[in-house]
């Protein structure tokens, strides 16, 4: 027989479990179970997407110790994601753990003990949290520990890995959740109840921002090389996600000296976090429960300034003030708006990551120059602010109080709708615009900022009019259909489209900002679109059929019973302002209510398909037009650093600096020119002569009509060096595909080459190891080549260097790139047939850590070492494919080593270059 306490606990646990989400966020009729189910499904889908990484670990051929270390990156990513999700869950269930007045008022008169309520709440929260963590790790929690355990070789290791994984995840969860609870608990103890209630919602919003910022902006430090620097070692002590990587390694029995202090930090953090949370919660329950009924939730009013700024006519002023006060005083509306702003912030921060840490070999942007991530962030925040505010406008504040708007009528509907529009502009567009202005003006010079703001303004107007096209309501006064708050799959697709369009638009904008003559048409286009939309919206607003809406659907009793109005009466008495919901009386007097037709999936699919097709067609045409104009490169705008030398039919650009011997000759990769070496050449020039050049069609070089074969490229280079008076010995530095040309040159003109440095070189057998993908690559390259005429290259990650950016999007460059790509396969096969051998000449192979993680690439990189009797390989950390831009110091050091060996062999002694 269940005791009374157990019965109370069971009943309360069920109630609290289904109330775990902050009730202020949801409407009374929201289907919480369905919503939570959708969240869980999303988390599980995310887990499934990430789980594939575990299989990648299993298939790796590297030594186990290397695999375990390289898995840190994945482990950190999983832990950080879990902590972020838990943190957001904690925000979503804000104050669920604390006693609230509603519970006290309902439960206090009943024979229920306080500690039963406390335990039931904790149990409910623990269950919900556990389910969330389980959903997020359901697939990764199997694949990763299995893979890591398998790498170590013993069955017991697999068991241990499973245990270590789940204990770490639960510990990270407890730390994160406890931290958020502790923050609330401390605030609840320190502040009076009314102040805490006022501050609480702002703390909630700040927590969202902090969690997202830390998740997206924390640096990638999960490698031994990164953790070994003193600065990073200090930094990670402030990043909890790294602590739990250390904890995992400790529990897994694979400790590393770099992670041991972090494991200790994790245990300490866990104890402090959970301990503080529990103690402050206990204090809350014991000290404040009785006061909850006595102390009102709202602070008594203080004297407030009687003057409120007029914002147009009295009606407009009334509506704007009503909306502003509703938003500032309704926690429900603020939290929902914060959710939308949080998503926008997450997207902006994800872009901001590229600002700080670069992207696959492209170095990060300098923040003090006009850059894409920051501009995209302002546009994304504007979009989400407007959309979020529009969504929030749909949610009523006090439905029954709407009678005042329906009975107190001084103007027609269009004037009320004008008030709605003004409210959206003032509360959503203006704050983002002003904040953008403040931030951008503090970091950038005036012109690009003013130019961007002038574009952001009309964009704000366009978004406002688009969002209000079918919104015939005063904000916060119309009923809201229950069950509307559902997570739609289309939302993700819309976000992707938004990000893609924003990215393209901002690139156009940056290009236009650099050339004021091109800026004016862009601004004019936005103004025209904004004006057209405004005109369209005004037409609709001033239409005699426009009525204010106060009910989303007619009252159920009318729908269910089929209202049959008196036809004669309806014809003689057209509906007045705000009297009835639209559609409740058929204006044709047929007496039938308009039925809601079920969604026609096929029709909507065709509409969507047509719209998508039309959109892409427009984009394509626009792109072709734009590229044909913008792709023309005016070389006079970009003064060349070197000189042009005729190599027979076309002139190539050569740039030599420094003096000394041997001369270092740089060969850049596919699609690159001599500017790729801008961080390396000056350093090398300090102790020897260094020459870089642009192959035909790239940079400042003229295009060649000849196919870009190994022979042709080598011949071009030979003639270039000869005519420029550059004599041996020569040390060649080749990057990526440039390394193929370098090796071919060395094989063709062996006497000219004294040493070689290969920088993330492309091996001639690369495509042979990707038999399935090569067909895709062919297809992709062919399509890509066709779309270049439409400016598709502008969508790809761009260099932060303005000259490189301009060249790489020019028609001349794209044609040269196309020609080079056509001969890649042939050139690789040719090099393989040649069988390069450098003999005793020094060879250094630089391989990026990222490249080295690819299983089939590792042995190919190592194979380069067999081409010289004096060879070595250096794995360069914190770098993608472009080591010479990400870690130029490593390249300079390798060149210096080869140069010194060459000098020793040439001159019999080491000539120490001047520092």
């Amino acid at each position, binding site marked *: 027989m269940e005791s009374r306490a157990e019965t109370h606990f069971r009943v309360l646990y069920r109630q609290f479990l289904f109330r775990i989400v902050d009730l202020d966020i949801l409407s009374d009729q929201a289907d919480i179970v369905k919503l939570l189910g959708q969240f869980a499904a999303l988390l599980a889908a995310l887990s499934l997407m990430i789980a594939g990484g575990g299989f990648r670990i299993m298939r790796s051929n590297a030594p186990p110790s290397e695999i375990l270390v390289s898995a840190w990156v994945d482990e950190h990513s999983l832990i950080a994601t879990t902590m972020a999700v838990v943190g957001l869950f904690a925000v979503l269930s804000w104050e669920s753990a604390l006693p609230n007045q509603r519970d006290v008022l309902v439960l206090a008169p009943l024979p229920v003990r306080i500690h039963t309520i406390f335990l039931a709440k904790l149990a409910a929260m623990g269950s919900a949290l556990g389910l969330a963590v389980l959903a997020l790790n359901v697939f990764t929690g199997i694949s990763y520990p299995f893979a890591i355990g398998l790498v170590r070789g013993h069955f017991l290791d697999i068991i241990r890995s499973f245990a270590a994984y789940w204990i770490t995840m639960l510990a990270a969860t407890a730390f994160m959740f406890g931290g958020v609870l502790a923050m609330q608990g401390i605030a609840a103890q320190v502040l009076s109840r009314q102040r805490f209630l006022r501050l609480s919602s702002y703390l909630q919003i700040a927590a969202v921002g902090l969690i997202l910022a830390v998740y997206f902006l924390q640096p990638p430090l999960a490698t031994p090389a990164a953790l070994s620097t003193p600065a990073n070692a200090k930094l990670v002590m402030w990043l909890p996600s790294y602590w739990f990587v250390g904890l995992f390694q400790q529990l897994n029995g694979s400790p590393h000296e770099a992670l041991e202090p972090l494991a200790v930090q994790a245990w300490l953090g866990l104890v402090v976090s959970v301990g503080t949370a529990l103690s402050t919660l206990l204090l809350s329950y014991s000290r404040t429960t009785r006061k909850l009924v006595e102390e009102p939730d*709202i602070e008594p009013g203080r004297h407030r300034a009687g003057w409120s700024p007029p914002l147009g006519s009295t009606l407009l002023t009334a509506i704007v003030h009503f909306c502003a006060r509703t938003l500032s005083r309704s926690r429900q509306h603020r939290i929902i708006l914060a959710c939308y702003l949080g998503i926008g912030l997450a997207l902006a921060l994800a872009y901001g990551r590229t600002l700080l840490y670069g992207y696959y070999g492209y170095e990060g942007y300098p923040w003090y120059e006009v850059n894409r991530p920051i501009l995209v962030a302002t546009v994304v925040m504007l979009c989400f602010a407007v959309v979020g505010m529009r969504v929030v406008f749909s949610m009523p504040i006090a439905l029954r109080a709407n009678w005042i708007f329906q009975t107190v*009528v001084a103007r027609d509907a269009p004037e009320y709708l004008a008030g709605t529009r003004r409210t959206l502009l003032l509360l959503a567009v203006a704050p983002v615009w002003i904040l953008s202005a403040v931030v951008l003006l503090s970091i950038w010079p005036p012109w690009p900022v003013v130019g961007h703001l002038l574009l952001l303004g009309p964009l704000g107007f366009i978004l406002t009019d688009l969002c209000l096209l079918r919104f015939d309501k005063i904000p916060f006064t119309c009923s809201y259909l229950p069950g509307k708050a559902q997570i739609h799959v289309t939302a993700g697709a819309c976000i992707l489209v938004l990000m893609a369009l924003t990215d393209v638009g901002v690139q156009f904008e940056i290009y236009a900002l650099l050339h004021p003559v091109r800026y004016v048409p862009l601004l004019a286009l936005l103004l025209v679109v904004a004006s057209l939309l405004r005109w369209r919206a005004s037409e609709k607003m001033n239409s005699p059929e426009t009525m204010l809406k106060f009910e989303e659907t007619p009252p159920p009793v009318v729908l269910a019973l089929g209202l049959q109005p008196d036809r004669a009466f309806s014809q003689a008495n057209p509906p007045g302002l705000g009297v009835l919901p639209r559609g409740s009386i058929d204006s044709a007097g047929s007496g039938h209510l308009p039925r809601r037709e079920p969604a026609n999936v096929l029709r909507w699919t065709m509409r969507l398909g047509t719209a998508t097709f039309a959109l892409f067609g427009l984009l394509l045409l626009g792109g072709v037009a734009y590229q044909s104009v913008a792709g023309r490169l005016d070389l006079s705008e970009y003064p060349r650093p070197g000189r042009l030398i005729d190599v027979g039919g076309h002139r190539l650009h050569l740039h030599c600096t420094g003096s000394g011997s041997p001369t270092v000759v740089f060969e850049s990769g596919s699609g690159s020119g001599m500017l790729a070496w801008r961080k390396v050449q000056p350093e090398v020039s300090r102790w020897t002569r260094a020459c870089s050049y642009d192959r035909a069609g790239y940079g400042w070089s003229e295009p060649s009509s000849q196919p870009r074969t190994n022979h042709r490229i080598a011949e071009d280079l030979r003639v270039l060096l000869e005519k420029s008076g550059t004599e041996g010995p020569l040390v060649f530095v080749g990057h990526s595909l440039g390394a193929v040309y370098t090796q071919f040159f060395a094989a063709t003109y062996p006497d000219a080459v004294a040493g070689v440095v290969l920088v993330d070189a492309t091996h001639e057998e690369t495509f042979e190891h990707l038999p399935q993908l090569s067909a895709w690559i062919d297809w992709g390259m062919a399509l890509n080549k066709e779309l270049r005429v439409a400016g598709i290259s502008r969508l790809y990650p761009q260099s932060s260097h303005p000259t490189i950016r301009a060249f790489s999007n020019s028609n001349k460059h794209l044609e040269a790139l196309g020609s080079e790509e056509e001969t890649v396969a042939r050139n690789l096969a040719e090099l393989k047939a040649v069988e390069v051998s450098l003999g005793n000449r020094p060879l250094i192979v630089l391989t990026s850590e990222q490249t080295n993680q690819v299983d089939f690439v590792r042995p190919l990189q190592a194979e380069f070492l067999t081409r010289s009797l004096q060879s070595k390989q250096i794995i360069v950390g914190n770098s993608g494919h472009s080591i010479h831009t990400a870690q130029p110091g490593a390249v300079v050091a390798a060149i210096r080593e080869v140069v010194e060996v060459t000098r020793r062999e040439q001159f019999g002694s080491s000539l120490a270059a001047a520092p």
Partner: protein
Amino acid sequence: MLELRSISKRFSGIVAVDEVSFSAAAGEVTGYLGPNGSGKSTTIKMITGLIEPTSGEILFNGELIRRDPIGFKQRMGYVPEEPHLYPHLSGSEYLTMVAQLRDLPSGPTTARIDELLRLFELHGDRHAPISAYSKGMRQKVLLIAALLHNPDLILLDEPFSGLDVSSALVLRSLIEELAARGKVVLFSSHELETVERLCSWVVILHRGKIVADDSVERLRALMALPTLEDIFSQLAVEQDTAAISRQIADLIEA
């Protein structure tokens, strides 16, 4: 004068108001009575424009209100039965908003609001949110909002609900004063004593139909009953209240 001519309201087979015709004259307080579900509130909502009549006409000072609904609403003040107000606004903010919605001039209206709050003893709480107001305080806010623009027609649906004794006395005097100044006052209430004292004319509704439309004195004489409560009980009440009370007490003791 407010005149209802054969006003009906049907909700698909259910007749809420059936061919109701009566008038409320200026300078008089007209009582509008009926049990719950008689169609009283429906009638008042039709007059205020919250719902539309199925048939019939409503005239104010000889003009059809449907011809100029905005103009009519500008001359009408309405106190609803339930004090539904925006809880997040303060009393002062709510009244200012109503004044702005009525397009009243800012300066004089602010002073008027201030003074009315003082007279209704709400001045000290004018900045507190309405969610913190008692029922009586909310009722006062509704009254002020209804009178702010000096309406010619005043519709009061259970205006005494929640008021304390002194406020009720003030309201009673106010209703008389407003009528004396030539307003049309239509007053609906369950407090029959107050209705009897205040109203010179009474309309009683039962099951959507008018069962009495006369002065209180004439009704007393016609029905030979001493009080309005007796008249109302005879015309509109169907329950044996004593029997029902006994049944409830028996049930809870079972």
